C-alpha cells in the first residue's frame, strides 16, 4: 500500500489537473479587473457556467493576454477575448486567431462599432478626453481642440501616455487617419517641441493631473471618472466638438477560433453584448452604452451629445500597426 501511494497520488494529481467540466468557459480580458470581474460574476450567477478568467490591465500594455492569445494560437485555451479597444481585437483577427460570430445581442449596435466580418463586436464605449486640473487651469485657458496642445501657453504643462501602447496608440492612429500622415506627424513633432510629458499609462496621466504634477492630460473617460469619484479637482473635456470630433473607444468581444468551450463562449458574448452589461458598465465606470435607451446615471455622458470622430475602426487598427516604428522613435526622442 505504501508503495502504491505515490502512484495513486500522481494519478489523482494528473486527474485533478486535466479534469474539466463542460459547465465552464475561459475568458481573457484586458479590461481592468475591478470593472470586468463583477460582470463575469453576474454571468456566472445567471447561467451557472463557471467563468475562469485571466485578467490583464492596460497598465501592462495588455501584454499578458494578447501575447498569450498569439502564443496559444495552435492550441487555444481561451474561449472569449474581451478587449478594452478594437485595436487588439483586430490584431487577433489579422493573425487568424478569432472567428466569426453574429451574436443576436448585437442587433441594436451601430454597425460602425462592428467588424465587417463579425470577428469582433463593440459594446460599451469610453471616450478619449482631456483631463484638466481645475485648480491650475482657468476656464478661458481650456483647449477646445487636441491641436491646441501645440500652443506655446501649454508648454510643458500636459501629458499623454506612451503612444505605443493602449488606447493612446489607438488615439494617435485615429489622428493619423483623420489628418493624414503628414499633418499628423507634424502635430506629433509640435507636441514634442512643446514639452509633452510622456506618462507610463493612462492611469499615470490621471494621477499626474489629479496631483497637479501637470495641468492637463489625454486619457480615457473611465480614468477621468475615477479621478472625479476620488474627489480630485479635475474635469473631463471632450475635444474638437466643432471640428473632426472626439474619439470614441468601444470595448470589443471576440470568439476564439477552435476554442475548447465554443458554445459557452457564445453565451458569454451574448451576455457581454446585452443591454444589462452596458448598464452595469455605465454604473461602475461611466462607460457609454452603444444600445439605445439604456438607463444610465446622470454622470455618464451620452453619445447623443458628443460629436464623435468619424473613423473606420478596422482601418485605424491597421494604421496603428503601420506607425509603430515612427511612434517608437517619437517616444524616445
Amino acid at each position, binding site marked *: 500500500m505504501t508503495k502504491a501511494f505515490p502512484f495513486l497520488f500522481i494519478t489523482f494529481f494528473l486527474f485533478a489537473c486535466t479534469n474539466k467540466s463542460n459547465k465552464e468557459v475561459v475568458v481573457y480580458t484586458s479590461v*481592468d479587473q475591478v470593472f470586468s470581474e463583477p460582470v463575469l460574476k453576474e454571468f456566472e450567477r445567471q447561467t451557472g457556467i463557471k467563468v475562469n478568467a485571466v485578467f490583464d490591465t492596460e497598465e501592462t500594455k495588455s501584454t499578458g493576454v494578447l*501575447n498569450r492569445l498569439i502564443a*496559444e494560437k495552435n492550441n487555444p485555451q481561451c474561449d472569449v477575448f474581451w478587449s478594452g479597444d478594437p485595436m487588439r481585437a483586430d490584431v487577433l483577427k489579422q493573425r487568424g486567431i478569432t472567428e466569426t460570430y453574429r451574436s443576436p445581442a448585437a442587433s441594436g449596435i451601430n454597425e460602425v462599432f462592428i467588424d465587417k466580418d463579425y470577428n469582433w463586436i463593440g459594446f460599451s464605449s469610453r471616450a478619449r478626453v482631456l483631463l484638466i486640473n481645475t485648480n491650475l487651469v482657468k476656464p478661458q485657458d481650456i483647449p477646445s481642440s487636441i491641436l491646441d496642445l501645440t500652443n506655446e501657453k501649454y508648454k510643458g504643462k500636459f501629458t499623454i501616455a506612451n503612444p505605443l501602447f493602449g488606447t493612446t496608440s489607438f488615439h494617435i492612429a485615429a489622428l493619423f487617419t483623420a489628418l493624414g500622415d503628414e499633418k499628423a506627424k507634424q502635430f506629433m513633432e509640435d507636441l514634442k517641441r512643446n514639452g509633452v510629458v510622456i506618462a507610463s499609462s493612462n492611469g499615470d496621466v490621471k494621477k499626474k493631473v489629479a496631483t497637479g504634477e501637470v495641468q492637463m492630460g489625454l486619457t480615457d473617460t473611465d480614468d477621468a471618472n475615477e479621478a472625479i469619484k476620488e474627489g480630485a479637482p479635475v474635469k473631463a473635456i471632450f475635444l474638437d466638438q466643432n471640428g473632426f470630433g472626439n474619439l470614441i473607444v468601444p470595448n470589443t468581444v471576440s470568439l476564439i477560433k477552435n476554442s475548447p468551450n465554443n458554445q459557452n463562449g457564445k453565451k458569454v458574448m451574448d451576455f457581454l453584448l446585452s443591454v444589462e452589461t452596458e448598464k452595469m458598465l455605465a454604473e461602475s465606470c461611466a462607460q457609454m452604452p452603444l444600445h439605445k435607451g439604456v438607463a444610465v446615471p446622470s454622470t455618464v455622458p451620452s453619445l447623443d451629445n458628443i460629436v464623435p470622430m468619424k473613423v473606420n475602426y478596422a482601418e485605424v487598427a491597421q494604421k496603428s500597426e503601420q506607425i509603430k516604428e515612427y511612434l517608437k522613435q517619437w517616444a524616445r526622442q
Partner: protein
Amino acid sequence: MGKTINSKTVLLLVAGLFLAAVVLPMGVLLFHAIFQKGSVAVESFTSIFHKDVLQSIGNSLIISTAVSMLSVLLGCCFAFLFSKATLPFSKALRLLLLLPLLLPSYVICVAWNDVWVFAGVHKNLIYSLPAVVFILTTIYTPLAAFIIQAGFKNINAGMEEAGMMITSFKQVFFKIVLPLLRPALFSSFILIFILSLSEFAVPSFLSVPVFVTEIFTQFSAFYNYSLAATQSLILTAICLLLLFPERKYLTKEYFFPFGKKAFRFRMYELRNKNVPLILAMLYIIFTVLVPVVFLTSQTFSRAGTSFLEIVIMLLPSLKDSVLIAIAGALIVTLFGLIFSWLTVQFKLKFLQTILLFVFAVPAIVTGVSLILFYNTPSLNFIYSSILIILIAFSARFLFISVKIISDSLQQIPVSFTDAAYMMGARPFYIFRKITLPLLGEALFTSFFIILIFCLNELSTVIMVYPPGISLLPVTIFTRTANAPQHIVSGMSLVALMFTIVILLCMLFGKKVLFNQQWRESR
C-alpha cells in the same frame, strides 16, 4: 565507488529531466529566433548596433553596475553591523531593512514618485537614471545584506583572532575577513547585477530607456518574438560575461574550512555604538520607512473602502499565493541542492552556466517560451495547472538557489566527509548526517529568499497563470489600474503585512528547528 557512480547517475537523471522542463522551452524559442528560414537571422543580431538600442544597453549597464556596487557596499556594512557587531536593536533594524524586498518593485517606485512629487522635486530629477539607481539600490541592498550576512557568520573566529594578535582590526578586516567574504560578495554582486539588468517596472515607470524595455516593446507593441528573443540572447551573453571574473578568481581558490560545527563565531564590540546606530537608523528611515509611511498615510487618508474590506478582497488570492509560493520555494530549494551537489561534488560547472542563462532571460521571454512549449494537447496537464507556475518559478529563481547553496557547499571541509567514508559510512548516511546539517543555514536562506521572490513574482506568472487561479501580485496589479489610490496603497500594505507575517513565522520556525547552541559566540 560503485555507489558514487550510481548516485551521480540518479542525480544527473533527475537534474537532466528537470533542466529539460525548464531550459528546453527557452532553448527552442531562441533556436527558432536565431535560425529563421534555414539561416541565421543576422539582422536580428545587427539590430543592436542601432543608436537607440546601444543607448539602451548603455543605460542598462550603468544602472546595473551602479545598483550592484552600491547595494553590495551598503549590504556589506549592514551585514557587518547586524552579524558581527554588537549593535543595539539589530534584530528590529534587520527586519525593517528587508521591507523594500518584500514589496513589488513597481509599488515602491510609485510610492517614491509620490514622495518626490509631494516634496516638490523637479521632474527632470524624478524621471532620470539616478532615480532608477536610487530606487533599485533601496530594493536590493537588503538582498546583499542577507547574503553577505551568511558569509560573515561562516567566518571562524580563530582566523580573526590569530590576525588580531599581530595586527590591527583594519588589517584583519581587509586582509582576512574580506577575502573570506569574496564568494558572498561576488554572489550578491552577480545576482543584483542580473536582477537590475532584467528590471522592467522601475525604468519603464520613470521613462528611462533600458535594454529590457526595448525587448518588451518588441514583444508588446510589435509582437516580434524573434527579434525580442534574439535580443534576450544578447542580454544573456552580457550576464554570462559576468561569470568570467568569478570563474577566474574564485573557482581555483582554496576555501578555508570554515564550516560551522566546532568553530567559534567572533563578535566585535563597537567602541562607539551611537554613530553606526544613528547612521543605520537614518538610512532605514530615509529609504525604507518614508515610502511605507507614505503608503500607509494614503491608505487611511480617505473614507470609503476600509482596510478590512481590502483584506477580505484579497483573501482568496492570499491562500493560493502562499500555497503556490511555498511549493515553489520548496521545489526550487530541493533542486538547488541537487544542482549544487552536482556542481561542487562532481565539478559540473556548466550546469550553473545553463541556469544563469535561464535566469538572465527576461521574464516576459520566459513566459512566452513556456506557453509555446507547454501549450500542446499532450502537455496540457502541465500548462493548465499550477505546474506551469512552478516551472516558471524554477526558471526564474533556480540559479539564485544554486548560488546560495553551492557557495556554502564548497566551504564544507572535505576532511569531514572523508573521515566518515573511512569509518565505512554510506554516502547517503554521510549526506544526511554531515552535509545536510552543515547546509542547514544555506538551505534556509535559499528557501527564505526564493519564497519572497515567488510571493512577488509577476512578470512571468501573469503570462502563464491558469485561468481561475488567483495570485496576489497579479490581483494587486490588475486591480491597480483603476482602483482609487487609497485602495491601491492599502492592497500594497496588505501584501507587505502578509509577507512579514509569513517571514516572522519562518524565522520563528528557524529558531525552533535549528538548534544553535553549538555556535559559541564571544
